[in-house]
Structure formats: structure tokens, C-alpha cells
């Protein structure tokens, strides 16, 4: 699976690079430069997050996480995870590190999906800092309102699909 994803992604990179090259050398160089710079700047953040969440998961005793967010926690666990996601401040490093640490230390996968979906869709600080300044406020509130049920739907659909 992981090899197939690598081949697919790099195939897409190849096609896009060829299209860019046909429109000029400068465009190709720009794309490579911007992409590689983005990668280099992201590396330390993702590295700290991935390795850090591994240690946080290891340090947390399982018996703290499992009753609240474990696979047996059911709907209540999904509600707790959704609230936690809405209240988690910070950028992707924070949200994904917490989700990964919870998953590794015994949280159920649907609960983690509810957490990261809620955090991605309506973490309160993000609505206020990013979305309201750039969008009409009433559209932002409308989007947040209709997003309220989505973490539950995401968790439910994931359960229906069954973990691969």
C-alpha cells in the first residue's frame, strides 16, 4: 500500500513537472523551488510532532485514555473527542500530535477520527483568527453550524466501512 501511494504521488509529480516544463523552464524551476522550500521548512515541525507524539503516547498510562476514549467508550467517547477537538488551539502540529498520541495510547480509531474532524472543521481559535477576517462572518457561522454533526458522521461512516 505504502509503495503504491509513493508511485502514485511521484507519478503525479512527474506529470505536473512535464506540464510545467512545456510552459517554460522558469515555471518548472519555480515549482521545484517552492515545493522543496516548503518541505524543508515543514521537516522540523513534523519530525518533532511525530517523534513527540510517540513519546507522549508511551508516557501516558493506558488506563487514563481507554475508559474515556477507548473503542468501548462508544458515543460518549465520540462526544468527548469532538468537544476536545473544538477546544484544541494551535496549528496542525498540535492537533495531529494529540490525535496520534491518543491513538497510540489506546483511544478508539472512530474517536480519534471524530477528534481530528472536529478540530479541523471548527476549532474555535481557527474560526476567529483565520476564517472571520477573510470571509463574511455570517457565512463562517453558517459553515460552523452545519459542520457540527460532521465529526459524528465521520466516526459513524468509518465504523460502517470497517478499518482496513
Amino acid at each position, binding site marked *: *500500500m*505504502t509503495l503504491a*501511494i*509513493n508511485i502514485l*504521488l*511521484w507519478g*503525479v*509529480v512527474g506529470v505536473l*513537472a512535464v506540464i510545467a516544463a512545456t510552459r517554460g523552464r522558469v515555471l518548472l524551476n519555480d*515549482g521545484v523551488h*517552492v*515545493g*522543496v522550500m*516548503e518541505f524543508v*521548512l515543514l*521537516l522540523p*515541525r*513534523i519530525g*518533532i*510532532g*511525530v*517523534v*513527540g*507524539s*510517540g*513519546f*507522549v503516547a*508511551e*508516557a501516558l498510562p493506558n488506563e487514563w485514555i481507554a475508559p474515556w476514549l477507548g473503542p468501548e467508550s462508544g458515543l460518549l467517547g465520540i462526544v468527548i473527542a469532538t468537544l476536545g477537538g473544538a477546544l484544541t488551539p*494551535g496549528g*496542525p*502540529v*498540535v492537533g*495531529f*500530535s494529540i490525535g496520534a498520541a491518543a*491513538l497510540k495510547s489506546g483511544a478508539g480509531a472512530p474517536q480519534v477520527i471524530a477528534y*481530528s*474532524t472536529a478540530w*479541523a*472543521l471548527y476549532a474555535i481559535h*481557527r474560526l476567529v483568527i*483565520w*476564517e472571520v477576517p*477573510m*470571509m*463574511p*462572518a*455570517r*457565512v463562517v457561522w*453558517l*459553515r460552523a453550524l*452545519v459542520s457540527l454533526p*460532521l465529526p459524528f*458522521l*465521520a466516526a459513524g*461512516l*468509518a465504523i460502517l*466501512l470497517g*478499518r*482496513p
Partner: protein
Amino acid sequence: MHTTLSPPPPSRRRRAFDWSTAIIAILAFAAAATVYLRDGRQHFFDVLVSDVSLFGEMLPKVLAGCLIGAFVTLLLPREMVARWVGHESGFTGLLIAAFFGFLLPGGPITIYPVASAFLVMGADAGAVVAFIVSWTLIGYTRAVVWELPFFGTDFVIWRIVAAIPLPIVAGLLARIVVRAGYQYRDEIK
């Protein structure tokens, strides 16, 4: 309100380190020290090796995700994207908006101005909601660059497949709320 989309908005000033990374770094250090002192040196290195190798395996994908994001941003004229959604309506409009949400790379600073432009060009709130939710939940660059290194390939694919209907659901819900009398047009100039 951004009615014209070119030249592209300035990308967010990216630093290799920011305050949220600093907090995670402090937490990680404390957790690593706990594991070392409580479980011993051997266990500490086992955890370290397994996490570093997970991270290492994901690096080629993250690099590919960054390159795809950069090329799509350069090659896809955003005016064209906005015009497509602006002129569509009905269920097809939601599908097109969700597809562009999946396709467009970038962070909040590039996505929200595009969404605002959709509104100005006549897209309804449902299409705009579908676009933003789609970018948030099934946008591939975000998933490849951010989510894969943390959760691994199988988990992320599972989460995304389960999320595919959600942008459409959100768009339909938004249309229901608007039909019930929610006003949003008066703010759009």
C-alpha cells in the same frame, strides 16, 4: 473582499519553528524523559527508533505532496476555478465545489480568499461550504503532507474515504438553513 485573484496572495510567512511546535517540543521532551526514567534506556531507544523510522518512511510522500501543491498552485488559474463554481448551481454545483476543495492545495490564507471570490462571483453558501469542508477533510495535500506522517497510510485513507460524502452533506445542510431564512447575502459586496 477579493474580487480579483491574480497575483496570488502572499503565502503565509513560514518559519521552521513556531509557538505551537515549541509547546509540542517541551511536551515531547518531558514525555521522553519520563519514558527514559520510568522504563529504562532500552525501551526509550525502542520508541525512538520506531517513531523515527515511521517519520523516515513518510518523507518521500511529504516531499511529493509539497511538490504537487507547488505545481498545482502555479498551473491552475484560480480565476477559472472561481468561475466554474460561480456559474453552477444545484447539486452539480456542490459536486464541483467539493472537487475543487479536494484539488486546491494551500493553507487557510489561500483557501478563504478563493472561497470569498466564489461568493462574489455568485456561488451560493452551500457551494462555498462544500468547498471549505472538502478542502479541510479530503484535500489531498493536507492529508499527504500533515496527516500521513502522524497516522500512517491505512488510517488516513480510511478516514478520507469515510469523509467523502461529508462536503456534500454540509453543503445541503447549509442550503436548508438558508432556505429556512438565514441571511448571509447582505454582507457580500
